[in-house]
């Protein structure tokens, strides 16, 4: 090693086996474990749902589909602003990076706000985690997903502050890309949950 200068990538040296920098590989491995986590929840729901299909409420009978459809659209919008933030950072567009990271944090918080409103409405009508299999599976799945969104919003708030301080300038966009992977995964899980829990 002596006598040969190795380039410094600020801890972002690409993993030579995958041709991808290490943080991204780490996030993908983490997301693989998250796939199995949500598979456990969704799989349990499917099995319980088929086992009690006669007594299971029909779509829209208890849950509010229009509000949740709008909330799904809101989360999809946050994925667009997230990917635009990354693209802006990659192209050296500082203003765009700041604007889109801020927008992602705000839209993500809006999704959480609508979910809290939905929970309060359901609980107000006596539908809670104690309301049989339907209630417990619904609140478990959407609750864990909401917790993931909450973690994402906290991280996006931190990323917004970092963006306004110029932390993603000069080609230093890797952190934003890795955070984006997490954010899009949360969006992807909601797409599946919305279909399985609310519409089927």
């Amino acid at each position, binding site marked *: 090693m002596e006598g040969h200068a190795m380039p410094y990538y600020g801890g972002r040296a*690409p993993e030579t086996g995958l041709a991808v920098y290490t943080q991204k590989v780490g996030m993908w491995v983490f997301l693989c474990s998250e796939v199995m986590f949500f*598979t456990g929840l969704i799989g349990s729901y499917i*099995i319980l749902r088929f086992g009690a299909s006669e007594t299971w409420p029909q779509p829209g009978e208890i849950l509010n*589909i229009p509000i949740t459809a709008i909330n799904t659209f809101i989360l999809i919008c946050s994925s667009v602003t997230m*990917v635009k933030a990354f693209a802006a950072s990659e192209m050296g567009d500082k203003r765009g990076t700041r604007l889109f990271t801020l927008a992602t944090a705000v839209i993500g918080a809006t999704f959480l706000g609508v979910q809290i409103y939905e929970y309060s409405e359901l609980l107000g009508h006596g539908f809670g985690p104690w309301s049989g299999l339907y209630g417990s599976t619904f609140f478990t799945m959407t609750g864990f997903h909401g917790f993931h969104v909450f973690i994402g919003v906290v991280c996006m708030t931190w990323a917004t502050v970092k963006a306004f301080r110029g932390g993603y300038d000069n080609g230093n966009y890797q952190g934003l890309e890795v955070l984006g992977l997490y954010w899009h995964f949360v969006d992807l899980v909601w797409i599946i949950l919305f279909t399985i829990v609310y519409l*089927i």
Partner: protein
Amino acid sequence: MDSTERLHETTGAVAVEAHARDHAHPRYLLVWLWLALLTAAEVAVVWFTALPKSWVVVALLIMAVWKALLVALYFMHLRFEPLRVAVLASSPLPLAVLLVMTVLQEYR
């Protein structure tokens, strides 16, 4: 492998990723439009059609997978990543199917 070879391999990896990035900016707003339309179509299928329940379920699952693929391929850039990353990303899917199918069989 000495440090010079390692250096070349590392910078090669940077070049591979930089090459991938050149193609990594699809029309995000078009993808967003598709996602919005598919979400609206899902709600319409549930509310405004008199299709048999089994058909509705199949249609909903197809649209959900379609939307999930759009997010994974374009927003998560899997379409532009090296093949090995796509393999890594999709590695839990067979396990997930196996988990659900196995427990479903046990339940019955």
